[in-house]
């Protein structure tokens, strides 16, 4: 396996991690939804859970992309999917000023709260990170 030869920067933290970076453009969110769907399917999620996850990543990207002023400096939005036996973690992050915060009264955040099991927004050193954890119910996968 020539993976051994990859420079450190190309190496993913864990074999199960998938990282996708998209330009700050709503049209590109379709890629994130699609990847989320395939990952959910591979993890043996039910069709309803899969739909939830697709909706969740859509809303999560929306928190960044719909924020006023976001994307004008050529930012990218990174979506990182990591899973272990019991949960799937989706980390959505982008370079953003600390003033970029989700409106917890808004439909996007409220729906996210209902879609995933854990939801955290953290902003530090110029990077905003949204972490979503979905517990895996089924034992398939």
């Amino acid at each position, binding site marked *: 396996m020539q993976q051994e030869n990859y420079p450190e920067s190309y190496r993913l933290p864990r074999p199960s991690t998938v990282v996708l970076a998209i330009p700050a453009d709503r049209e590109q969110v*379709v890629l994130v*939804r*699609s990847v989320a*769907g*395939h990952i959910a*399917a*591979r993890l043996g999620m039910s*069709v*309803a859970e899969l*739909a*939830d996850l697709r*909706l969740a990543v*859509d*809303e999560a990207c929306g928190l960044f992309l719909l924020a006023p002023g976001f994307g004008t400096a050529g930012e990218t939005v990174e979506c990182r999917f990591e899973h272990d036996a019991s949960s799937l973690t989706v980390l959505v992050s982008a370079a953003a000023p*600390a*003033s970029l*915060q*989700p*409106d*917890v*009264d*808004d*439909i996007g*955040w*409220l*729906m*996210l*709260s*209902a*879609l995933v*099991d*854990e*939801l*955290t*927004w*953290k*902003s*530090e050193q110029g990077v905003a990170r949204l972490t979503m954890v979905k517990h895996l119910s089924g034992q398939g996968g």
Partner: protein
Amino acid sequence: MDGTVTARPETDPEESPDEGPDEQDADRQPAGPVSPHAERRAETMRVFHRMHKLPPGDPERERLRAEVIEDHMAYARRIAARYGGHGEVVEDFVQVAYLGLVKAVDNFDPGHGTGFLGYATPMIMGEIKRYFRDATWDVHVPRRMQELSSALRKVTEALTQELGRSPSVAELAEKVRATPEEVIEAMDAASAYTTASLDRPVRVDSAEGASLAEFVGDEDPRFEAVVNREVLKPLLARLGERDKRILMMRFFRGMTQSQIGEELHVSQMQVSRLLTRILEELRAGFD
């Protein structure tokens, strides 16, 4: 400024009924005006408090109940819209979203300390999800995909002839009145998560051996489930000579229905019907 916002479904950080600027809000929008949401939230809470001071059945209480439901119907519709869907399905989503809203209004306790939307949102979504599960989810989505796949097959053939080239996804999407994403999904659905290697060349002896996927892709989306040739063999043996020939021409020689029709001196429509019947027979044998 660093900031952390955490939320779990059961503990929504919403402002409490005794409104007033909460620190989180102030923290979040240091220089901005008061959130337009905040004023509406406060008004909703006032309506709920008034409602709950009245006995059930009181006409004024009923009026307030109707008012708060009406005020949030647009919000419920927005949630339903996020679930997508088409035609009647959207209308169904909206209806169950309203149902969830009414339940939320009737069960919400304004003294409990959470905001109304934090309470109503998961309830409305839960109602939509229940609707998926009970009525349509298992049936609708695959059926929608099946319908889309079969529509795509027809439209691809028609558009290819009309344009004299292979149509783009956008062109297909417009014709079948779906989004490009759905078109790709429907294409995906025909090949994803099956163990059979669809990319294995059919004719290993030929350099330009087309892969099975090319033949199967635009045909019946469920055909790939039976295309495992090892399993197919005994089933194929049971088919009549002509049926076997049609199947071979279509899937292993990649002929179009019209070409098969010419060879057999029947119309393309008849070939289409024959193929449908043959595939059904195969599937029946497969079950």
